């Protein structure tokens, strides 16, 4: 039952994990994305955060911004949650689960920088969050229109009846993933990287990249 078409863009499926009708799977393409997310999550778990250094002009002094204590724990937790949500999104075999995981990545990204006390970072996080909430409308809308038009949300079933997914639903889902953090809306996010605490902050970028790669695969499969 669970077989992708021979010409599927991600390659043949390697492993299928059915939870009832929600079927997660790996293809050579998604397993690469999964391993990348896993590696970054492990880096977030085991590495220590960077110490950002600011030069004080006119003197030979520097300021070190350290991430310590509760702040460190919270950000590490949110970064790990972001990694897990990313892994969920790249292995998901269900359109709606994918959109939920994408939204979860957005929440985790806000969480990673939420405890930073710099005003410009909080400002950027707020603006990013507004776009991220608004982009759940096309995401869920696209999934709902798919369900209404084809009667299923499973990527397997959609791949079997291949061009069934309406183009408007595809467009909406791509716009939604864009809003969660790729190209035209990326400006709202770029400022977030100026927050100190490197491996956790980098997770923001990695997750968006993987979301983008995965949504391309889904849109070419269904």
């Amino acid at each position, binding site marked *: 039952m669970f077989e992708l078409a021979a010409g599927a863009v991600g390659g043949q499926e390697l492993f299928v994990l059915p939870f009832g009708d929600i079927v997660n799977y790996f293809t050579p393409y998604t397993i690469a994305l999964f391993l990348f997310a896993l590696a970054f999550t492990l880096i977030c778990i085991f590495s220590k955060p960077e110490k950002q250094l600011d030069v004080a002009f006119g003197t030979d002094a520097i300021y070190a911004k350290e991430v310590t204590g509760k702040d460190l724990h919270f950000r590490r937790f949110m970064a790990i949650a972001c990694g897990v949500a990313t892994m969920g999104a790249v292995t998901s075999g269900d359109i709606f689960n994918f959109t939920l995981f994408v939204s979860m990545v957005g929440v985790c990204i806000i969480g990673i920088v*939420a405890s930073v006390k710099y005003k410009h970072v909080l400002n950027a996080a707020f603006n990013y*969050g507004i776009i991220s909430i*608004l982009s759940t409308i096309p*995401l869920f*809308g696209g999934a709902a229109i798919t*369900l209404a038009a084809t009667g299923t949300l499973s990527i397997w079933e959609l791949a079997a009846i291949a061009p069934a997914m309406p183009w408007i639903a595809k467009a909406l889902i791509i716009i939604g993933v864009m809003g969660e953090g790729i190209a035209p809306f990326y400006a709202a996010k770029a400022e977030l990287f100026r927050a100190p605490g490197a491996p956790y902050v980098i997770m923001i970028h990695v997750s968006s990249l993987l979301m983008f790669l995965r949504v391309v695969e889904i849109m070419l499969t269904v």
Partner: protein
Amino acid sequence: MMEEYTIGLIVALVAVIITFAAAVWEKNDIHRLIIADLGEVAALAIIALVATDLAEALIIPGLVVGISELMALSEIYLVREGLSRPVKQPFRIEVLDTAPAIIAVILVAYGIVLSGFTGGAVAGTGVIFYLMGKPHAERFALIETVSGFAWVFWIVAFFIFMIMPEYWFFGVMLAGGAILAKVTSKMSLVGTMRGGNNV
């Protein structure tokens, strides 16, 4: 049927367009936050238009994600604006020292007899009343921990149903007790929503 769906979809999309236009024009940040939440409601409406059991099952996760995003953003807004709650003198009268314990015991006992979700709600009401009558120096982290463990037991009960169906009675008891503790502890947190450091 498809006709009605199309009409509904057009109405929802018009609502979405109005929301987006408002989000573009609005400059006040707190208003933008509320407008974004309104957009979330429009997204739920689009899901609800499908009007099947599956759509119903999709609304709850959609709602949860929307609320968690709204809460995260509100927290960021509060931190950025440096807003904190004003400290108010709590309202004290004599009956608040004696009555809550008695009423809470009755409600909690009745809730435990009922068990399950309903029992949790009844017992939770008792605990809310108790906490509202008390100065808030209780250990809220403990309540949260109880709630977390209760949730784990609830999930374990579901695994029992799926993996070992012959132990269904044990699973029912576990789920009933766990959801009682979970709903009670979650509802009791409502009684503590009066500001203060440890909330």
